[in-house]
């Protein structure tokens, strides 16, 4: 048999309802997850359309309007050097979302190939790499992030790199675990018996089957990364002034809680809303993808 024929058989192996349809059906039934998805999409669109939607320049200062409460002119109030908070929330969403998406993408792009390699190869390659990954996991994420950010310099890009690097081990482990559980399935054995090269097996047969749990983990990791960016801001790393990010806005606002609470309320709500939604959607996705649980 040719390789193409074999592929066709392997992919079409699950007769009956296609997996994606089943996932979608289950997902739609979970209202919390749907709400989460809607909120996430809303924030993404808000950030993308920031130049159009933002009422002011987020960097425009005004000495006369320092720490003014919400009003018709400034719907969310102004901050400690007179900038419009609503504008900074909208533009800050870009920074926070990017922090989440870019760092997790980095973790995926590095972690998944390593996981595929070490899971499929096994033996001493697997052993060595996993010891290294264990070592990385043994160092508390924040310490790793602080050290990296201090080395690279405190700014948003380096915070994203630091968060991405410290999340990478989780994806390596997850991928490896999935590869290990699939490695000895019949259709993989058969593909190997036919003479498919390893790379093809990994990329065309194994990878598509392990995407679902990776997707779930990625969603949850983005949520964690947004919180991590806020945490790094607290330590003086992460997005630097005058550019906004919700984390750094929250960090600045914590010193003005008694004088200007609105400075803290909006970024706090924004982080809470987005991260909670991501978590709800991720959990819902996991439930929907779980082949055992059936409603």
């Amino acid at each position, binding site marked *: 048999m040719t390789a193409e024929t074999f592929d066709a058989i392997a992919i079409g192996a699950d007769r009956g309802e296609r997996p994606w349809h089943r996932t979608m059906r289950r997902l739609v039934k979970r209202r919390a997850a749907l709400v989460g998805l809607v909120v996430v999409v809303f924030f993404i669109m808000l950030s993308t359309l920031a130049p159009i939607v933002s009422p002011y320049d987020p960097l425009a*200062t005004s*000495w006369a309007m*320092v720490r003014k409460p919400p009003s018709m002119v400034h719907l969310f109030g102004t901050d*400690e*050097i*007179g900038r419009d908070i609503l504008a900074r929330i909208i533009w800050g969403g870009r920074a926070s979302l990017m922090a989440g998406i870019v760092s997790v993408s980095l973790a995926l792009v590095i972690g998944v190939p390593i996981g595929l390699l070490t899971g499929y190869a096994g033996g001493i390659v697997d052993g060595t790499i996993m010891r290294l990954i264990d070592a990385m996991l043994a160092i508390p994420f924040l310490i790793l992030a602080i050290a990296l*950010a*201090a080395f690279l*310099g*405190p*700014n948003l890009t380096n915070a994203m790199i630091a968060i991405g690097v410290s999340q990478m081990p989780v994806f390596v482990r997850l991928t490896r675990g999935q590869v290990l559980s699939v490695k000895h399935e019949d259709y993989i054995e058969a593909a190997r018996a036919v003479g498919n090269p390893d790379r093809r097996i990994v990329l065309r047969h194994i990878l598509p089957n392990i995407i679902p749990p990776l997707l779930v983990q990625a969603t949850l990791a983005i949520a964690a990364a947004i919180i991590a960016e806020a945490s790094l801001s607290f330590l*003086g*790393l992460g997005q*630097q*002034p*005058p550019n906004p990010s919700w984390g750094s806005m929250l960090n*600045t606002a*914590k*010193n*003005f*809680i*008694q*004088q200007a609470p609105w400075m803290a309320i909006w970024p706090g709500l924004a982080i809470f809303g987005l991260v909670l939604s991501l978590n709800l959607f991720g959990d819902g996705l996991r439930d929907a993808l779980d082949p055992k649980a059936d409603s």
Partner: protein
Amino acid sequence: MCAKGLGMTMPRLLAATLLLIAATFTAIDPSPAAARVLRIGLADDPDMLDPTLARTYTGRIVFAAMCDKLVDITPELDIAPQLATEWQWVDGNKGLVLKLRQGVLFQDGEPLDAGAVKFSIERHLNMPGSNRKAEISAVSGVEIIDDHTVKLVLKAPFAPLLAALSDRAGMIVSPKAAEAPGDFANHPVCAGPYKFVERVAQDRIVLERFADYWNKDAVKFDRIVFMPIPDSTVRLANLQSGGLDMIERLAATDLETARKDSRLKVATITGLGYQSLSINLNNGPRAQNPLGQDPRVREALELSLDRAALNEVVFNGLFQPGNQWVGPSNPFYVKSHPAPARDVAKAKQLLAAAAAPNPRVTLMMTTVPEMMRAAQVIQAMAAEAGFDIKIQATESGAALQASVDGQFELSLNGWSGRTDPDGNLYNFVSCKAPPALNVARYCNPTVDEELDAARTAGDAASRLAHYAKVADRILADRPLIYLWHPTWLFAMNAKIAGFEPYPDGLIRPQGMTMQ
């Protein structure tokens, strides 16, 4: 090698914790002794409690309660007696004779005599790693004249000496304790009102009243506990909730909150320090830019700034705008050079004349919230004159290194301040200054002559004349653009009486009581 006590199973741990909680709330709490304790919140953790090796400002606050010095300052910056009661310049100002107070004991019971003073000063001069050596390097030796009289012998006249002796360089330590095995910092013994009891790193420093202090009637509290709490909001929260009795370095933006709180009261005083913009004139390749090379561009930068508005926005108007290394009310302020008013039009003209209408400059500063606010305001103000300033927040360790290595064009930094104007100036602009302090690498031999002359001159008036000449040059060359002088802000329990703020920002327990 390290304790691993985490082997209990979950249910057992749960049960144990619940039992513990139940037990504590039924147990009788031992009532605290009716001791009067003063709990002070510090803005950061002091370093080593050894006056010879100590290097942080915050450490000085602890020393103010623990280690008396030869002389002290008054709030008006005059020199006052402390361990020495009289002093006199002799030998053409190359000798300083100090008469010591009678009957002073160290906290370990040893008498404080001329031998102890000689020991301490020589320790400051000769101990490896001593951070005091540079401060009193003019002293070549100490002579004992009699049991309670010493003479400090100088290589050349040095007017700032008494001011140096009013700080850590004048702190006298017990020779017996200093020579005992182990690090002195872990068991310091001095002659101040409170003696060292214990220190838990990053948690607290506990001092107890020294019963045989020479001025014991002025000392009312039995114990002082210092607690470092770096976040200013949390520090204030502790004070408001009663966990602390006093805090130093209240954030300027919190002053109103503290004033409005009836549980608290505040005290303020203009400090000795300053904050400035340092410009890289000659420290490596990054000095090669219009700002570093052309004095007109530097003048334009200064003219684009509104010091009063900066103070207003960032510090609620509480700090003191300034343009020299000492504040406008300081006796050594050069009155012929008042702070220039903002003049954006002139700034633009100067930039045009320098053929640099939009200079791009990177402004480096550390990630301290108030510095970041100030930097953003400076960026916005200078932008109106055409400057394109990019803010580069740098973590403090990296910033220090970058300053030394010349990896900066413009940097926002400051100096905590010394009593004598020389302490605020010499090490930053002289050719012989330490490279880590004169980061601009400014070097002008005429200025150096005047600085040296000001050090050796005998009276304040002639010193001021020399400093006026220094100002003529420095304020035109602008290796530093001085911006403001921080005000020390203290908040405390409203029941505390007798606290007097000093320009050095230290807390002197003598005279303080709780009602």
